[in-house]
């Protein structure tokens, strides 16, 4: 039985999470691998509420009034940074924005020193983007507040995976991904978006297919093989193929990933033209998917390379919805993280994330 209790401390105890409901206990969000499915659903429900706020005449609530959110971007990414900062401002947080071009980072200051400085300056929630995989884990070790990973190296981009999941649920009956075919086509090897999506979509029960040229799929087959059915608690299997038609056929969701020019200099691709011809999402390939299938892209797009311009603007494309949902998901995560306090909880099974 759950009842409302009015305590004596002078604060109204508004129904702090009854025991039968999932409780948010993560101090940091570094990847989706640390999340249980009920926790992901809590993020989705909280995102629903944030969408409600975004639909109001006044798109701002005082939830994080006076809390200090700092964005620390070691890689240029205007869209992700603006999305986080919009989310923080919608919650009335104070936002400090630091990018490598404008900080002592360019003077060779170490990440650890930078983070200690930001903490001394009052940062409470640190949103971080870094080109080296695992860098946010180092940040979380030294930072006294909360770290929210805005993308690290090839490793993880948890807010992108969660906004992708949210967008897919909006378009699927009952918001249920179980058995739904999701094809992700592109440069899987170098993609933190793909890696985080592997964790979240296999948790959601989707029939996930990763597709790209063999050079950009390295290591993925080994991973997919290791994750046979039931191998990893809470996660299903996924598939890897270099045949784009196999990946896209009868898919409910088709997602293209950005192909970067550097891949050709690295000897991984003959040319962008050849990539577009063999793997680009054009109308013909998308027509192999289910009639009601949606087309996604985490942006920024190279139209004419990984996605044809007519596909990008077609009725199936939900790319601008992804951007809008990104603000709501990031609001939800900022809100949830801000309330996670020390509970002495031991390590999580996956990433070793602890409340410390």
């Amino acid at each position: 039985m759950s009842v409302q209790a009015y305590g004596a401390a002078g604060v109204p105890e508004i129904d702090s999470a009854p025991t039968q409901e999932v409780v948010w206990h993560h101090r940091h969000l570094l990847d989706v691998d640390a999340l249980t499915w009920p926790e992901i659903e809590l993020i989705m429900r909280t995102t629903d509420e944030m969408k409600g706020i975004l639909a109001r005449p006044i798109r701002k609530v005082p939830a994080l009034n006076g809390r200090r959110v700092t964005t620390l971007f070691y890689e240029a990414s205007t869209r992700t940074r603006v999305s986080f900062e919009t989310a923080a401002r919608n919650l009335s947080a104070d936002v400090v924005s630091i990018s490598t071009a404008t900080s002592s980072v360019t003077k060779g200051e170490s990440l650890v020193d930078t983070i200690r400085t930001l903490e001394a300056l009052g940062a409470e929630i640190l949103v971080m983007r870094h080109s080296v995989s695992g860098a946010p884990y180092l940040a979380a070790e030294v930072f006294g507040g909360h770290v929210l990973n805005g993308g690290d190296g090839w490793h993880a981009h948890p807010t992108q995976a969660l906004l992708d999941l949210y967008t897919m649920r909006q378009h699927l009956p009952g918001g249920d991904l179980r058995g739904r075919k999701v094809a992700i086509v592109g440069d899987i090897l170098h993609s933190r978006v793909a890696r985080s999506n592997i964790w979240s979509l296999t948790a959601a029960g989707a029939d996930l297919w990763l597709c790209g040229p063999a050079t950009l799929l390295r290591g993925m087959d080994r991973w997919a093989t290791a994750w046979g059915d039931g191998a990893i608690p809470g996660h299903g299997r996924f598939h890897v193929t270099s045949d784009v038609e196999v990946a896209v056929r009868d898919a409910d969701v088709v997602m293209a990933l950005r192909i970067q020019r550097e891949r050709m200099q690295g000897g991984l691709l003959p040319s962008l033209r050849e990539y577009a011809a063999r793997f680009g999402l054009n109308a013909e390939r998308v027509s192999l998917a289910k009639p009601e299938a949606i087309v996604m892209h985490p942006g920024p797009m190279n139209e004419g390379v990984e996605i044809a311009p007519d596909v990008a603007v077609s009725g199936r494309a939900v790319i601008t919805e992804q951007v809008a949902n990104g603000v709501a998901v990031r609001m939800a995560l900022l809100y949830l993280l801000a309330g996670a306090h020390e509970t002495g909880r031991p390590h999580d099974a996956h990433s070793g994330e602890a409340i410390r």
Partner: protein
Amino acid sequence: MTDRQIMTGEEIRRAIVRISHEIVEKHAGTDGLAIVGIQRRGVPLAKRVAAAIEEHEGVRLPVGALDITFYRDDLSLVAQQPIVKGTDLPFDLNGTTVVLVDDVLYTGRTIRCAMDALVDFGRPRAIRLAVLIDRGHRELPIRADHVGKNVPTSREEIVKVHVEEVDGSEEVTIGRQLRAGEPAAGRQ
């Protein structure tokens, strides 16, 4: 710790009916009136107030639910973020007289949050407040327009309102605050 019952289900029902009459009387009718319950137990109470008004006035008033989570000023003090229960205001607030309904009025902070939240959705003509229990100890200059029962309490006591829709029973109880080290059983 044993909780003492201070209202029975029947007493709750009578209090709701009385409040519903008071609301109509104070407003001199039902025109432009809307009832909004504060999540969580204020919502079923608001529905009952509206049902009682419908019974004796023959008018179905718009009823809404207000979640004040994002407006709380104590988010950094609670152990975990409260679960958001959702806001649903299926009518235009502008020009309406909104009667906020909650179960217990204590420090007044919840009501302040609720008013903040409400004005983000529009500009009501007036906001009134109806509560089932007023237990005193206000920390803000807030007063209820309609009260089911005034209950003098100490700060160490806990007042619990149980409603069928949420708790599966109907009563109001009063008990003592747990001290550190006491078993938590019975609190939930």
